[in-house]
C-alpha cells in the first residue's frame, strides 16, 4: 500500500471528523470532535472513556488492548449519559500510542436529531448519515402510504364481503321465494286437477249410482217374482198334464188351438225361458251391485275393503272396451290374485285409480293395434295382467301390466305431472295419473311406479298400506 505523502492539517481534520474521539492507553480522552462535544451532556476531554461510553459492538469491554485487538471491527459506542450512539472505526497511532475513534452519530429515527439539536452543517459533507436520515424518512413515508392503502384495501374487502353477503342473502331470498312460488303453482295445479277430476269422477259416480239405484227397484220386481213365476208356471203345467191325462180326447176347439200354438213346444220352452230370465235377472242384479260398489258414494270415510271387488267392479264398467270389435281383438284379463286381507282405504278413490290405469292400459293396447294395422303387422294376443299380493305383512301390492305400446323415458319422466297427456287433443285430460298419484301417495301414504319401455308394454305397481295412520292427508 502506498502511504499518502500528505495529511490533513488539524483544523481540516476536525471539519472532516466533527464527532471523533482520541484516547490514550490509559483510556483518557485527549481530543474530541467539536460537534460531539457540543451535543454530549458531559465534558469529554480529560475524562476516561469508560466513564462516558460503553461498547455495544464488538462485544468487548472498553480496554485499550482489547480495542486494539479488534482494530478492524465496526465499533458502536453508546453514551452512558444520553444513550447517543456513535458508529465508526478505530485507528491506532503507534508513534503516539493513541487511538482515534473516527465516528459519526448513528440515528435510526428523526426524533434523535431534533433531541440532539444537530444541523446539516454539523455533519461533514462526505458523511452519509444525513442521506441515511433522508432515506429513512422516505421509507417511513412510503410505509405510511402502504399502510393507508392496506387499510383502505382491508376496508374495501370488508365492504365487498358484506356486499357479497347481502347479495348472497338476496339471492337466497329470491331462490326461496321462487321455490315457494313454484310450490304454490304446483299445489295450485294439483288442486285444479283434483277439482276437475273429482268433479268428473263425482259426476260419473253419481250417474252410475243413479242408474244402479233406478235399475235396482225394477230388477228387484223381476228378480223377486221369478221364483213365484216359476212355481205358478210349474203348477199350471202340472194342471195341464193332469188335464191331458184325465181327458185324453179334448174338445176339438181345444185341440185345434193346442195344435195351432204347439202347446207341446211351449211347455218344453217355457221352462227354458224362465231359466233364461232367471239367469238374465241374476246378471242384472250383479251388474247393479257392481255399479254401486264402483261408485261407493255411500262410503265417504276410510274403511277396510276388498281390493279384488274394487278391481272387478272397475273391469265390469270397462267390460265393453275389452270386447272384440271390428278393428280390435278382445283383451284378455289375466287375474293373478293372492289372498288379500281387507285394505283400509277410500274405496271410491282407489277404484278411481284402477279405472285410470286400466283405461290407459286399454288405450295403449288399442293404440298399438291401430299402428300395427297401419303397418300391416300381424295381430298378437292382447292382455292385461292384474296381480295382487301382500308385501311384508304391511302393504298390498297391485300390479296392472299391459302388453301395449309402452312408453319412452321422456314420457315416463312426466307421467304423473298434471295435464301431461300423450293422447290426441280432446281425448285425454292429462289428469288421470296425476290424480292417481295424489290418491295413492298423498292420501294413502302409498307408492306408485311405472315400469315401461317402448314396445314393451307398461306395468303400474301400486302399493298401499294395509292400515292407515291418522296423520295422512284427508
Amino acid at each position, binding site marked *: 500500500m502506498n502511504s499518502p505523502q500528505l495529511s490533513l492539517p488539524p483544523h481540516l481534520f476536525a471539519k472532516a471528523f466533527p464527532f471523533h474521539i482520541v484516547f490514550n492507553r490509559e483510556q483518557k480522552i485527549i481530543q474530541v470532535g467539536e460537534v460531539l462535544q457540543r451535543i454530549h451532556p458531559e465534558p469529554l476531554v480529560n475524562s476516561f472513556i469508560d466513564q462516558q461510553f460503553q461498547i455495544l459492538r464488538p462485544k468487548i469491554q472498553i480496554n485499550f488492548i482489547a480495542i486494539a485487538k479488534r482494530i478492524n471491527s465496526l465499533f458502536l459506542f453508546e453514551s452512558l449519559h444520553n444513550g447517543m450512539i456513535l458508529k465508526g472505526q478505530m485507528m491506532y497511532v503507534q508513534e503516539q500510542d493513541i487511538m482515534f475513534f473516527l465516528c459519526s452519530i448513528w440515528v435510526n429515527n428523526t426524533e434523535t436529531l*431534533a433531541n440532539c439539536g444537530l*444541523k*446539516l452543517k454539523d455533519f461533514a*459533507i462526505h458523511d452519509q448519515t*444525513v442521506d441515511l436520515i*433522508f432515506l429513512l*424518512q*422516505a421509507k417511513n413515508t412510503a410505509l405510511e*402510504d402502504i399502510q393507508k392503502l392496506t387499510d383502505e384495501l382491508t376496508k374495501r374487502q370488508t365492504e365487498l364481503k358484506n356486499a357479497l353477503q347481502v347479495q348472497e342473502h338476496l339471492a337466497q331470498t329470491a331462490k326461496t321465494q321462487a321455490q315457494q312460488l313454484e310450490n304454490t303453482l304446483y299445489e295450485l295445479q294439483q288442486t285444479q286437477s283434483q277439482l276437475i277430476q273429482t268433479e268428473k269422477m263425482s259426476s260419473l259416480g253419481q250417474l252410475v249410482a243413479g242408474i244402479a239405484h233406478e235399475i235396482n227397484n225394477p230388477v228387484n220386481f223381476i228378480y223377486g217374482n221369478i221364483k213365484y213365476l216359476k212355481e205358478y208356471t210349474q203348477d199350471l203345467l202340472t194342471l195341464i198334464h193332469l188335464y191331458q191325462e184325465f181327458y185324453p180326447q179334448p174338445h176339438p176347439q181345444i185341440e185345434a188351438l193346442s195344435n195351432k200354438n204347439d202347446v207341446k213346444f211351449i211347455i218344453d220352452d217355457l221352462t227354458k225361458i224362465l231359466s233364461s230370465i232367471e239367469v238374465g235377472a241374476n246378471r242384472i242384479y250383479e251388474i247393479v251391485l257392481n255399479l254401486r260398489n264402483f261408485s261407493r258414494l255411500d262410503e265417504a270415510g276410510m274403511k277396510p275393503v276388498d281390493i279384488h271387488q274394487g278391481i272387478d267392479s272397475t273391469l265390469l264398467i270397462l267390460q265393453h272396451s275389452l270386447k272384440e270389435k271390428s278393428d280390435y281383438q278382445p283383451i284378455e284379463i289375466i287375474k293373478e290374485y293372492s289372498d288379500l286381507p281387507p285394505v283400509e282405504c277410500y274405496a271410491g278413490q282407489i277404484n278411481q285409480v284402477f279405472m285410470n290405469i286400466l283405461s290407459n292400459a286399454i288405450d295403449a293396447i288399442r293404440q298399438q293395434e291401430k299402428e300395427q294395422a297401419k303397418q300391416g303387422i300381424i295381430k298378437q294376443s292382447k292382455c292385461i295382467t292384474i296381480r295382487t299380493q301382500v308385501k311384508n305383512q304391511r302393504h298390498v301390492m297391485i300390479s296392472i301390466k299391459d302388453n301395449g305400446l309402452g312408453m319412452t323415458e321422456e314420457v315416463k319422466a312426466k307421467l304423473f305431472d298434471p295435464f301431461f297427456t300423450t293422447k290426441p287433443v280432446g281425448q285425454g285430460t292429462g289428469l288421470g295419473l296425476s290424480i292417481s298419484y295424489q290418491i295413492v301417495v298423498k292420501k294413502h301414504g302409498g307408492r306408485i311406479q311405472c315400469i315401461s319401455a317402448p314396445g314393451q308394454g307398461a306395468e303400474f305397481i301400486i302399493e298401499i298400506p294395509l292400515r292407515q295412520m291418522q296423520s295422512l292427508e284427508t
Partner: protein
Amino acid sequence: MYGLINKAIQDMVCARFDKETWQTIKQKAEIQIDDFLRMEPYPDDLTHKLVKAASEVVGLSSSEIMQAFGEYWIQYTGKAGYGPMLDMGGDTLPEFLENLDDLHTRLSINFPQYHPPSFECTESEENTLELHYHSSRQGLAAMVVGLVNGLGTRFNTEVNVTQTQNREEGAAHDVFLIEYKAI
C-alpha cells in the same frame, strides 16, 4: 415529480376549500387516481394539469396558485415527517437558504427521479439576500416566492420577495431579491 407534491396540492385544496372542490379539480384534470403515493414518481404533466384545473375551478391564476402552494409546501413537509430535516436546514432564514441547495442535492441522491432545482444564495447587503434559482422545469418561479414566504413564517421573519430576473422574460435564470427582518 414525486407524489409528495401532488399530495400536497390535494391537501392544500382540501384545507383551503373542501373535498368536493378537490374532486371537481381532479375530474376537470381527468385524473383517475384516488390516492397519490408520496414516494412514487408521477409525470410532470399530471401536476401541471392539476394546477391548471385548480386555477379554473377556484378562479385564481396559475401563478397565484403556485405561490400559495409554495407557502403551503413548507407547512406540509413539516407536518409530513420532514420537520426534523427542515430543522437541520438551519435556525434562521438566511442559514436555511444557504443550506437549501445541499438539501436538494441530498434529496436527489435518494430520489434519482427527483431532478431537483438548484439554489444559490448570496448576501448582497445586510438583511438582503439574492436567491438564484435554476430549474429544468418551467413556470415554477412563483412557487419559489411562496416558499420563501413560507420560510419567513417558519422562522418568524418578515420577508419581502421581489423577482429581479425572470427566465420567462429571457433571463438565463430566475433571481429573487429577499429582504428579511427577524420579528
